[in-house]
């Protein structure tokens, strides 16, 4: 077949989404040993794998990575305290423990690791007031409230945690715009909003949210370009397609933004030569923005390619969340929100 006869679809381009290029980009990430970025990002490799794997799942191409090699690698990142580091030999942190477990859940091999040790690790990071640290050094953040609750829910062990304390911690971090900060007193930020809503969803306490006010604030994150920002007066960024839209999805208000314009913005941030999605058009792509850009397309209902549906609480495909018994948060959504 001559080049001229090749259609977009044969090249793996669907409605402007460069599917094949993104798959090739993600697959190439583990081979870029001659690039300094490869080594400089080693400390969060496990999160990089998670982002790549989510993107591939949504594109229906998850089998393109070496499953056994990844599982073995993930296991090598677990430390004696039960937590995981971002790479073999690195210290445990909730951020990387979350990525590790999400990968294992997606590969359906959570039973191959010692869950009790992980549960103990997570429980060790909550203080008596309910606040949660990211590691033994004590940085507190509502992101860690979500991660701790999510990890425990993977093991169906939330009842072993001081949930009232966590909920109170999240509630105290709520602001007059309906959003949430990184801690009590902290300014609202849409990524923080996602983590707090997701924590409340799992805890079954979404009722404490000012739904209308927060939905309005989140909807206003959309800018002229169609892209979303994290706070007022900030630039749009493809990753907020996930943080804002997942929040709106939990609130039942995805239709409060212009989904078509958002999709157009995400597509405009693609690297159509080498694959991957960047924060904004013309910038260098990375796996983080590739993942959250594609997640955004899925939530926004992009229909030119059969993207898998994403769970807005766990950030993994709905079919996997269902298999892992993680969809019960939906029963906790207030009836009037549906």
């Amino acid at each position, binding site marked *: 077949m001559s080049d001229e006869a090749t259609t977009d679809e044969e090249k793996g381009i669907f409605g402007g989404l460069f599917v094949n290029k993104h798959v090739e980009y993600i697959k190439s990430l583990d081979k870029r*040993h*001659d*690039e*300094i*970025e490869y*080594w*400089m990002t*080693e*400390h*969060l490799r496990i999160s990089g794998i998670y982002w790549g794997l989510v993107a591939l799942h949504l594109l229906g191409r998850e089998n393109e990575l070496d499953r056994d090699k990844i599982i073995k690698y993930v296991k090598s990142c677990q430390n004696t305290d039960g937590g995981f*580091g*971002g790479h073999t*030999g*690195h*210290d445990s*942190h909730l951020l990387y423990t979350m990525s590790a477990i999400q990968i294992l859940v997606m590969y359906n091999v959570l039973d191959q690791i010692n869950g009790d040790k992980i549960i103990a690790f997570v429980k060790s990071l909550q203080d008596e007031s309910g606040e949660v640290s990211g*590691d033994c*050094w004590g*940085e507190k953040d509502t992101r860690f409230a979500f991660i701790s609750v999510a990890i425990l829910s993977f093991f169906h062990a939330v009842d072993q945690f001081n949930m009232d304390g966590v909920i109170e911690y999240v509630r105290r971090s709520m*602001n*007059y*715009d309906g959003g949430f900060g*990184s*801690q009590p*007193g*902290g*300014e*609202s*930020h849409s990524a923080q909003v996602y983590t707090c809503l997701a924590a409340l969803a799992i805890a079954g306490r979404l009722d404490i949210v000012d739904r209308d006010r927060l*939905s*309005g*604030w989140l*909807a*206003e994150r*959309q800018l002229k370009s169609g892209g979303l920002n994290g*706070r*007022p*007066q*900030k*630039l749009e*960024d493809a990753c907020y397609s996930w943080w804002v839209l997942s929040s709106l999805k939990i609130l039942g*208000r995805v*239709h*409060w*933004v*212009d989904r078509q*314009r958002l999709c157009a913005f995400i597509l405009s941030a693609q*690297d159509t*030569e*080498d694959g991957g999605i*960047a*924060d*904004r058009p*013309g*910038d*260098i*792509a*990375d796996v*983080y*923005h590739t993942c959250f850009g594609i997640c955004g397309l899925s939530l926004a209902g992009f229909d030119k390619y059969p993207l898998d549906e994403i769970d807005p609480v766990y950030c993994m495909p709905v079919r996997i969340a269902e298999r892992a018994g993680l969809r019960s948060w939906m029963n906790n959504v207030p009836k009037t929100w549906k």
Partner: protein
Amino acid sequence: MHGRRRQTTQEPTVDEREQNKQRVEKYCALNGLVMNNRAQKVFSKDALETTKRLLDLNTELHTVWNYRREIFTHLDDWQDEEKRQEMLETELAFLLEIIMKNIKSYWMWNHRIWALQSLPRPGWERELGLVAKLLSVDARNFHGWDYRRFVVKQLKKNVDVDGQLEVDAREFAFTTEQINKDCANHAAWHNRSKLFPAVLNMAKNEPERQGLFKKEFDMILNAIYTDPDDQNAWLYYDWLLGIQENGEEKRKLLRDKVATIRELLELEEDSKWPMIELVGALIALEQQNPGSVTSDEKKECLDILSRLKEVDTYHIGRYKDMSKTMSQQWGGIC
């Protein structure tokens, strides 16, 4: 990777390739050395120096920051107060240097907090000055504001109740200053909402209280007239009305708001935020005192929502939902 521009694809020259190769080799060798020291539990001054060299290249290595802290606490000098003070002062200077290079690194801020909390004589006032300087470069910086609140918390720990009020008053004045510079500063308005209740508590009598509220409303009006379509002052306005006790005074304030918005809309009839806020104020009034909103005003609200769908096509879904709810609640007139 935020905000790094893509270059047009050009094959690197032989020289560039060689340079890159050396850079990778150098970095990997240093990283290998540090991680190996860590594994061997080496807690020497030499090891400390290598972590510094590595962190200077890559601030994101939280394991290396952890290791650095471990080395510090294992050194003999750590036990000597004067020597510890000196070491940590040097550490703070190093941190300042690299924070300026990458302000967004969580790990560095954590390390700075650790260093200050480990200092025999921490200089919290100096930290406050430092944050002010940082915020003068980037007035919205998330880490800067979070750190500022942390420093303020420490300052308040060391003083009595009057001293604490003084700190709050000073912080409140700082937000005034920031808002006067840029009335769209979301971070400053936010912080103001956290501080105003404390400032209000300082009022000695009712007239003083009313005076404080009056000042806030003036500030809001100033911001709203400067840019009616900036959401920050509106958010603060809503919040300030929300903390009023229900009653005649609150209804009057809501009516004042309605009047202000009508004035704004006379100047610019398709201004989105004033339109949204007019609807919001009337809904609040009706909730406060059912029947106080006339049927003409209710019709006006629905008209505004229809117009908003044309003025702001990004949020049609929201305006449709609002119209639907309003029609249900105010059924008769619609």
